[in-house]
């Protein structure tokens, strides 16, 4: 069992090394997130809707879409030189490949959010300080669910005729039970309520993570050539 995780870590490091050297996806996801924050502001009447009502929704929509941008290329990067064949030929379990890819995506999503979440707070004038820690917890729970489903669908989408066009269509319905609880819990925190008030939402996120990390890891081998 520990071998599965060790191999997964190796694969995640490989993906992160590629990303760290090129920084192509990170920069585009980051700029995308910042652009989204700005555009959203002008989509509402700022004098009618207060920033605190707007921010949680904006935050999680940006989170979902910028996360999806990174996952596009999670398996796409293996396609041009059939790198995936090399991975499959190497003596690692297929579950490790999935977990490694998902872990790299998790780090990617986290890295974008570390900039994007304070940016939302800055542009929308929110007091981030008191809620920073619980908000980071919610973001982590949401990100785990997001990358487990997104990584699996990215692996599937690259092999279809529609390629990345298919990814949003497949994954967005699955992000609904992530975005709703995350946005609701964030709204509770930002309006000064204690973390306990968001308990039901957090449990829902946690249950989603447990079910979909396991289901997606088990499902991944079925998406490979036999």
């Amino acid at each position: 069992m520990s071998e599965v995780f060790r191999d997964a870590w190796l694969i995640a490091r490989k993906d992160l090394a590629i990303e760290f050297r090129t920084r192509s996806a990170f920069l585009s996801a980051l700029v995308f997130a910042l652009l989204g924050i700005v555009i959203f502001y002008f989509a509402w009447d700022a004098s009618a809707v207060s920033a605190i009502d707007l921010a949680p929704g904006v935050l999680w929509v940006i989170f979902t879409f910028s996360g999806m941008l990174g996952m596009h290329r999670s398996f796409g990067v293996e396609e041009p030189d059939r790198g995936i064949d090399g991975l499959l030929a190497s003596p690692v379990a297929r579950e490790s490949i999935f977990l490694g890819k998902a872990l790299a995506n998790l780090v990617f999503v986290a890295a974008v959010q570390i900039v994007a979440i304070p940016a939302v707070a800055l542009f929308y004038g929110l007091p981030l300080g008191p809620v920073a820690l619980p908000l980071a917890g919610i973001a982590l729970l949401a990100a785990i669910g997001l990358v487990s489903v997104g990584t699996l669908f990215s692996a599937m989408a690259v092999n279809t005729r529609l390629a990345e066009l298919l990814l949003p269509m497949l994954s967005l319905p699955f992000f609904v039970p992530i975005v709703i609880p995350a946005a609701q819990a964030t709204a509770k925190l930002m309006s000064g309520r204690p973390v306990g008030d968001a308990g039901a939402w957090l449990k829902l996120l946690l249950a989603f993570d447990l079910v979909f990390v396991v289901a997606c890891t088990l499902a991944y081998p079925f998406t490979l050539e036999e």
Partner: protein
Amino acid sequence: MKPTPLSLAAVAAVLVTFVRAIFFTPLEATQGPAQKILYVHAPAAWVAFMAFGLVGLTSVLYLWLKEDRLDRVAESSAEVGVVFTTVVLITGPLWGKPIWGAYWTWDARLTLTLFLWFIYVAYIVLRGAIDDRAMRARYSAVLGILGALLIPFIHLSVYLFRTLHPQPILMKPSAPSLPGEMLTTLLLAFASFTLLYVALLRARYRYAVERDDAHPAEAYDA
């Protein structure tokens, strides 16, 4: 495709249901004629859930047994299910406008039904985007299973918004809360819609068999 005794019987049963619902079932006191849409809406929703349940079941079985027939049942049931979900999503607003005053509300059940529709439309699109038959079967089985796992989560997350939808009148712990004549019509509607589902499923399945026979183990357009 020639009509089979089963499909003729199903169409006849649905026609009988409609005639009974329109002419021989009393008007509901407060809602008036709008209530009659229940006899289409509720059985269509029942069939949709049954159809998607079968997609989930056959998807699990496919990954286990790798039997082509199971994949064809899943494919057929998903398509028929989407048709019935579309009926639910059209009849619901038609009733909602006069009774609720709005075509659409973000009620838990409405939202869930809308997302069911999205999930299984994506399922059909996914099938259409893969040429290799075995790969298509595996991918759609994976989506069929994950989709079934997703349904309770969407339900829970949208349920915490206040629900406007009428509460169950048939499938609930206490006795059905519908007057006798209306209840008979509703039960008849459930039976005839189920029969229609089976007939459509069978017709769609036979189409899949003929298509697969015509193009053995090669690419084709689904």
